């Protein structure tokens, strides 16, 4: 039998329920492997000894009715955890200890989950490679000096390296799906309003969503079921009837109509990705679903729109970091000087760049030309999807225009870094659910993902499509444990 850490969440849960494993055994196994994997730099904060205490407590009085019975889970360091340092990958929050718990993590602990630690991420989730983190680069377990994607890069690396059975990330423009694609794992961004944003360090409030990152689709359904909830503490949380995603999971997608948008064939995209997409289309046909060519005419405008809307919201959200009530402070000659020095020294370059873009597009004289314009184009992008969903049930695209790249390869050119999110950003702008599943390897042996985009609140359909494709694809990650 393979070791505990190689098992899926679903398998571990079954083994705990049948008393084959104790929570303590499982927790120790993941801690032991995490201890051996420091080179990946996936963790910002370890919670190991307290995790073992929690596991022992669970084993003394086990509750097998829970969905995550005594399961250790490491989470992205963007979720506030009561009494445990939460940094958002930033120097400015390096010493911040929240006095409250995010709703999403609370939901996990309520179902028996145990906090293993906090995972590295791009600073304030602004990045596509985890290189903007104050706590350093994360290595992709696929290969040394390869980025794990971002912003949930510590999460994707920890998951692919078997340091945690499942994890959660946040996705503002692709920050769950792109790292999932780069590491050969599954990542789902739910419909805007599904998972509460309460207690998540805010980046762009009209785009941010938390979501599951897992080794397979079944696990993804289980974790989504746990974290998706209506929450009065988040004014944009939506009260809709949530499915029992894991028990309703089926590989029967006969008669489903799947759209293939022609605009997602972009210049310079490697032939391998095009081929993979074609293969995905064949798999879907084999499952008895119907393929329909569609058009999402404003796709090319999504990234420029995103790079107005997201920085604008960020500049407003990040105004709170002023060195007064929490976080880093730099001494100044007077109050204003203190603010300016604190923010200059406390934020990294990418965060400062985005705050300044946001400040500019919201500033007097430029608001209409940029921010209002972007909000209008966002409407057109959403309408593209609304129109498409009159004809199809879901949409299949590649997840990213390339596989994982080398650390440092794109960090000097913001625009080329931004292009990473070309296929994922439209989904956030339209508030839709999207899932990335591993679909194959490129010539270097690096994973590539396919994305399935759904109708609002129809996570079940994209999970079902992903589930049936997963069976056909039978993906195997090529990880050698080079870091141990």
């Amino acid at each position, binding site marked *: 039998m393979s070791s505990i850490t190689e098992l899926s969440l679903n398998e571990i849960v079954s083994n705990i329920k049948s008393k084959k494993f104790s929570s303590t055994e499982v927790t120790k196994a993941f801690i032991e492997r995490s201890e051996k994997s420091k080179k990946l730099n996936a963790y910002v904060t370890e919670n190991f000894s307290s995790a073992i205490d929690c596991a022992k407590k669970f084993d003394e009085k086990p509750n097998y009715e829970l969905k995550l019975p005594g399961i250790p889970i490491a989470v992205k360091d963007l979720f506030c955890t009561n009494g445990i340092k939460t940094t958002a990958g930033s120097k400015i929050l390096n010493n911040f200890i929240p006095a409250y718990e995010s709703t999403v993590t609370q939901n996990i602990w309520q179902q028996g989950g145990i906090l293993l630690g906090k995972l590295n991420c791009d600073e304030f989730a602004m990045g596509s490679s985890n290189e903007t983190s104050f706590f350093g680069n994360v290595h992709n377990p696929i290969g040394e000096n390869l980025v794990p994607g971002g912003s949930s890069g510590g999460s994707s690396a920890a998951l692919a390296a078997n340091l945690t059975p499942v994890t959660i990330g946040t996705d503002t423009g692709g920050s769950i799906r792109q790292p999932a694609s780069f590491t050969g794992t599954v990542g789902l961004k739910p419909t805007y309003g599904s998972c509460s944003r309460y207690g998540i360090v805010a980046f762009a409030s009209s785009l941010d969503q938390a979501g599951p990152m897992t080794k397979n689709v079944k696990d993804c359904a289980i974790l989504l079921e746990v974290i998706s909830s209506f929450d009065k503490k988040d004014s944009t949380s939506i009260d809709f009837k949530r499915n029992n995603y894991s028990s309703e999971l089926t590989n029967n997608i006969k008669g489903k109509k799947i759209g293939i948008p022609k605009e997602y064939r972009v210049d310079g995209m490697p032939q391998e990705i095009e081929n993979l997409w074609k293969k995905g289309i064949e798999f879907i046909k084999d499952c008895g679903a119907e393929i329909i060519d569609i058009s999402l005419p404003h796709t090319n405008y999504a*990234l420029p729109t995103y790079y107005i809307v997201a920085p604008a919201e960020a*500049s407003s959200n990040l105004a709170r970091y002023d060195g007064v*009530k929490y976080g880093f402070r730099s001494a100044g000659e007077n109050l204003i000087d203190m603010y300016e020095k604190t923010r200059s020294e406390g934020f990294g370059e990418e965060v400062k760049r985005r705050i300044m873009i946001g400040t500019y597009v919201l500033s007097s004289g430029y608001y209409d030309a940029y921010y209002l314009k972007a909000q209008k184009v966002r409407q057109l992008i959403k309408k593209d999807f609304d129109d498409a969903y009159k004809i199809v049930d879901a949409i299949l695209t590649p997840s990213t225009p390339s596989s994982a790249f080398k650390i440092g390869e794109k960090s000097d050119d913001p625009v080329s870094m931004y292009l990473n999110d070309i296929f994922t950003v439209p989904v956030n702008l339209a508030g839709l659910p999207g899932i990335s599943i591993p679909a194959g390897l490129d010539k270097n042996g690096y994973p590539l993902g396919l994305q399935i985009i759904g109708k609002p609140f129809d996570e079940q359909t994209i999970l079902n499509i992903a589930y049936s494709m997963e069976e056909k694809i039978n993906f195997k990650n090529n990880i050698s444990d080079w870091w141990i």
Partner: protein
Amino acid sequence: MTIDLKTVKHISKLSRISVDDEKANKLAGDLNSIFSFIEKLNELNTENVEPLTSIAETTLRFREDEIKSENIREKILKNSPENNEDFFVVPKVVE
């Protein structure tokens, strides 16, 4: 459109982020390449398009105006870079 050094300095003031001349030059370059990428939106005629302000089409809920907070004053103050007993401390603002 180009963003010059003066504009960068102005934005940095508005953002309350101090930048020295060297950084400002680098930022001007970055911002120009980002904004030339953003200019693409001008290809679209959006005259009769309603701006999308919220993706969640719900009306904001009302709630009772009640005090629910726990007594976490100490925990809150502990996070501040400088405080004395019950207050956050900032550099002197009144002469």
